[in-house]
């Protein structure tokens, strides 16, 4: 039983991991064909992975409704929201436009899904402003450097900020856009590059641990 529950899955990780890694270095036709097949398989398996999340969401809200837990009435709207997109999708066969005319799905996308998704993230703008006002405190030299860099970017990104800079510091003959360009192409690169190199080392080490079976958290409990 241990063979099919643990050893074979670990063997699958190692074999597919090593073979996929080798395809990067082997330009032979068989290597290319193998990668093509694996790419197709990956597309299909990833699509099924989504259904995990869908089943989990439906199950948790169904449990809330059946238990009549606090706020259970709102859980009904999860199903309503789902049907508000799924039914138009079925009617329109997954098409948003029919030529230049909006289909039922296109309508649902433009007037239901789009506003909901966009507004959820747009709300963050308000919190950024209030948090900047209440929490952005210059308490150290490092915080001051962060503040200066942020100010240059906040003002330099908009025409009014550029005009204000020109009015106050125009005598320096440097536009704020030049300073913003320099910040993004010199010191910010140094910061980001260090982070990138660090992350890449982490990713490579973790991937090797997965392929060699040292990292097994994703298998879950035995």
């Amino acid at each position, binding site marked *: 039983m241990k063979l099919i*529950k643990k050893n074979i899955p670990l063997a699958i990780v190692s074999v597919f991991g090593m073979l996929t890694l080798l395809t990067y270095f082997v330009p032979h036709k068989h290597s290319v064909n193998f990668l093509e097949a694996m790419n197709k398989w990956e597309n299909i398996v990833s699509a099924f992975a989504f259904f995990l999340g869908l089943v989990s969401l439906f199950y948790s809200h169904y449990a809330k409704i059946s238990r009549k837990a606090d706020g259970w009435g709102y859980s009904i709207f999860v199903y309503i*929201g789902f049907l508000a997109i799924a039914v138009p999708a079925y009617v329109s066969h997954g098409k948003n436009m029919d030529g230049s005319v*909006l289909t039922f799905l296109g309508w649902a996308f433009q007037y239901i899904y789009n506003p909901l998704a966009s507004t959820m993230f747009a709300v963050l703008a308000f919190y950024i402003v209030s948090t900047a006002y209440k929490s952005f405190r210059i308490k150290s030299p490092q915080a001051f450097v962060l503040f200066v860099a942020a100010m240059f970017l906040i003002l330099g990104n908009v025409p009014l900020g550029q005009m204000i800079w020109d009015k106050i510091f125009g005598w320096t003959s440097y536009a704020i856009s030049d300073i913003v360009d320099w910040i993004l192409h010199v010191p*910010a690169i*140094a910061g980001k590059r260090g982070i990138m190199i660090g992350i890449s080392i982490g990713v490579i080490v973790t991937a090797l641990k997965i392929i060699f079976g040292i990292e097994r958290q994703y298998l879950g409990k035995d």
Partner: protein
Amino acid sequence: MSDTFLIAGAWISAGLTIFLFSFLYKDNPFFKVAEHLYLGAGMGWWFQVYLYGVLKPKVWIPLMNHDWMVIIPALLGLSLITQFIPKISWVSRYGFTFLMGYGSGLAIPAYLATDFINQIGGTIQPFANLAGMPAFALFNAILVAVGVICVLIYFFFSVEHKGAIKKASNVGIYFLMIYFGAAFGNTVMARFSLLYGRFDTLYTFSASKYLYATQFILVGMIVYFIAHALMNRGKKETEPAH
């Protein structure tokens, strides 16, 4: 699409937008309804994309054309769903291990080449043209090289940060602060851009063509909050003092 559908769409869109924004004043049932609708609609959207974009053309149609090879990835994909049945949840390991092995194998050379070797190369490369470099370009190249090394020293925790290492690490912090400051400044623009998009839509739907959808819904929400505040004040007044 007929005008009725467009006007109905405008009212729904403006309504959902204003319901979500109403949370900024106070949590309320309209916000909760919109929030749960978003959850469901988001899943509905992804569901139809996967169904019509992947499962139908890449699994169903090949199976109808007797391409039996797609059964293997389909079974691997279905195995993932056994996670919900504790007795046979071990079957999902087959699907997960395929995904993990494939992803790990692809990631190693990609990150090695692009985010490791190329970045080190990019730091050293400007010095290859040392002779013909203007002074400011040379200064910039040295600044980037010093910055990258100091940031890497900051993240190197295997050695105790003291003496020269601590000084270099502190320099690295300043470079990180410049990067985070630049990122914050741009984040402000990014978030405001999203807000502009929504306000622009609300402004569009405030026209007579859409029967002043934005105005009516906004006034409706304000009336709700005032009525709610008055009702709660009334309730507080009728409660006996303790």
